[in-house]
């Protein structure tokens, strides 16, 4: 009857206050059907609160939330077509693994044989066959994680909510589970809303990333876009490393803005609106190269301050004539001039491609 929209969740001007604390601030958010959306941000920026409002554990102070076409405000969690994978799993300790996974189906009135069959299938999906009769405390952290996932997946919800589900796992297991989660999401085709403060995790798994700060979304885009064209200095700093220089726009011509910065001038490509006044110019460290001389555009002389070995790469922090620093991450024994032999105090020349500088709102 109802016309299916292309969005599974929509926030319209959602604000959530706890006493005097504004946890979520006038938030608009559209979650597309079938996508893997990550909410990324530092601690306390309102990720969990946003997720809990979708789940129904918190009600917005103002604004509206739609799940599918239905107004979700005031609807209790047990009447919503969404399920949550909790950070600390929240498995029922007095039930077996199979009963945990079948719990939701039981509440729906699915008869016993059928729900056992479906719970079994969900356990197979997360590679946990053979552990059905165990109690949760008899499983490892990674296995408990999978049970929590199976318990939510078996419900085939419209949206699956995951609050830092890998937070309690060690590095190697995290990596494996990232791949695993992405595979499962593609296999079942359910919309995932994934909360994390790990930018690498968000980059590798998401279709889109919402970078949050102080209860607001700073930028919502595909991972590459967020990385290549961050909308603000905050986003740029949060996702990967970024050299930033404060400057003033001198002029714009032919899609290139010329900006006066402390160390000279920088040319940055612009698309859309023409910038003016005070801006920030950002350059990713891995876009900075060490070159032999100053012959050519986008080159600058500098002195090495520190040199850090990063496995296959070397990080150089270099000071320019005006005292500001520029960080470069260059391949070891690569095409760049003799970076392996550089020591602090050496004079070098740095360069970047014309497309590297990014204009950020100051």
């Amino acid at each position: 009857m109802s016309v299916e929209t292309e969005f599974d969740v929509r926030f319209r001007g959602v604000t959530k206050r706890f006493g005097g604390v504004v946890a979520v601030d006038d938030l608009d958010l559209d979650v597309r059907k079938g996508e893997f959306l990550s909410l990324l941000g530092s601690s306390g920026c309102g990720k969990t609160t946003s997720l809990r409002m979708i789940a129904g554990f918190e009600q917005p102070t103002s604004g509206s939330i739609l799940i599918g076409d239905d107004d979700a405000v005031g609807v209790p969690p047990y009447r919503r077509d969404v399920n949550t994978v909790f950070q600390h799993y929240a498995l029922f300790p007095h039930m077996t693994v199979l009963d945990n996974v079948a719990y939701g189906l039981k509440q729906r009135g699915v008869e016993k044989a059928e729900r056992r069959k479906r719970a079994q299938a969900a356990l197979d999906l997360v590679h946990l066959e053979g552990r059905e009769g165990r109690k949760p405390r008899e499983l490892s952290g990674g296995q408990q994680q999978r049970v929590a996932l199976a318990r939510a997946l078996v419900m085939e919800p419209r949206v699956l909510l995951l609050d830092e589900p890998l937070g309690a796992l060690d590095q190697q297991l995290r990596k494996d589970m990232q791949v695993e989660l992405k595979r499962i999401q593609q296999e079942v085709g359910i919309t995932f809303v994934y909360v994390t403060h790990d930018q690498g995790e968000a980059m590798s798994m998401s279709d889109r990333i919402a970078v949050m700060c102080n209860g607001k979304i700073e930028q919502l885009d595909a991972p590459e876009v967020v990385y290549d064209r961050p909308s603000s200095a905050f986003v740029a700093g949060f996702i990967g490393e970024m050299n930033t220089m404060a400057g003033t726009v001198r002029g714009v011509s032919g899609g290139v803005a010329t900006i006066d910065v402390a160390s000279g001038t920088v040319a940055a490509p612009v698309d859309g609106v023409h910038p003016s006044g005070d801006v920030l110019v950002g350059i990713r460290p891995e876009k900075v190269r060490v070159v032999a001389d100053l012959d050519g555009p986008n080159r600058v002389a500098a002195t090495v301050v520190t040199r850090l070995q990063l496995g296959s790469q070397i990080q150089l922090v270099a000071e320019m004539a005006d005292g500001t620093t520029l960080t470069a991450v260059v391949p070891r024994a690569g095409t760049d001039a003799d970076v392996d032999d550089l020591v602090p105090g050496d004079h070098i020349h740095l360069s970047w491609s014309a497309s590297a500088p990014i204009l950020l709102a100051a």
Partner: protein
Amino acid sequence: MNDSATRRRLLTGWGILVLLFLYLPIAVVIAYSFNANEAVSNWTGFTLDWFTRAWETPRYQKALGLSLKIAVLNAIIATLLGTAAALALGRARSKWKVPFSVLVFLTLVVPEIVIAVASRIFFVKAHEGFSFFPSLGWKTILMAHVVWSSAVVVLIVRSRFTGMGSSLEEASFDLGAGPVKTFVQVTLPRLLPAIVAGALLSFTMSFDNYVLSVFTASGDNETWPMAVFNDVRFGVTPAVNAISTVMFLVVAAGVAGAMWFVTRKSGEPADGRG
């Protein structure tokens, strides 16, 4: 010479002394309840006669029956009331939470005699004012016991309830179970050890209570502890030793059972966080 070692030895010695002081009289009572000699202080051999004799005394039978009736009813009512109060107090954010908790726990620290006297006056006046209110008798004993022992149930059940956290209930809601289903399938099973412990303790507290019973009983009610005390006044007989021994065993079993349930770990969340 090692100071801390000396201190530890002194403490250990002191601890043993305290335990002896507490339990030696009980041990003597138990030992002499098996003494064949009528003269309490003179050991002449082992016998179970005193137990059979006590058991065959109609007055003791009646007293035991009354105590059991009150203790069982008390355990049931105090557990129901105490659990309900614990759930209400556990996670409520009402402004009444603190005053109500203080009132409940006050009954545990106020001297028993004060509660006993107050209860007696209240029950007598209540009966004078309202004819449906029972006169002093086993019902008023029961009421006094319930008020007093349900505080212990509140204490035990509430500490487990708050310690449990709400994340499992949230998970249950999330999976489509409403409040009632969640309570039955998740909250109650996890509270059960604490509830059983509360029931055992409130049974024990009622069963061996003397002061409250004396003050809220009429002339012809005699609970078991009252019977023991009434007879001790006329001299310690081996039969009294025998029923004291039985009472001690019942109480010890009740408390031990309660401790076992309270410390049971079965309901802990797998990751240690509630």
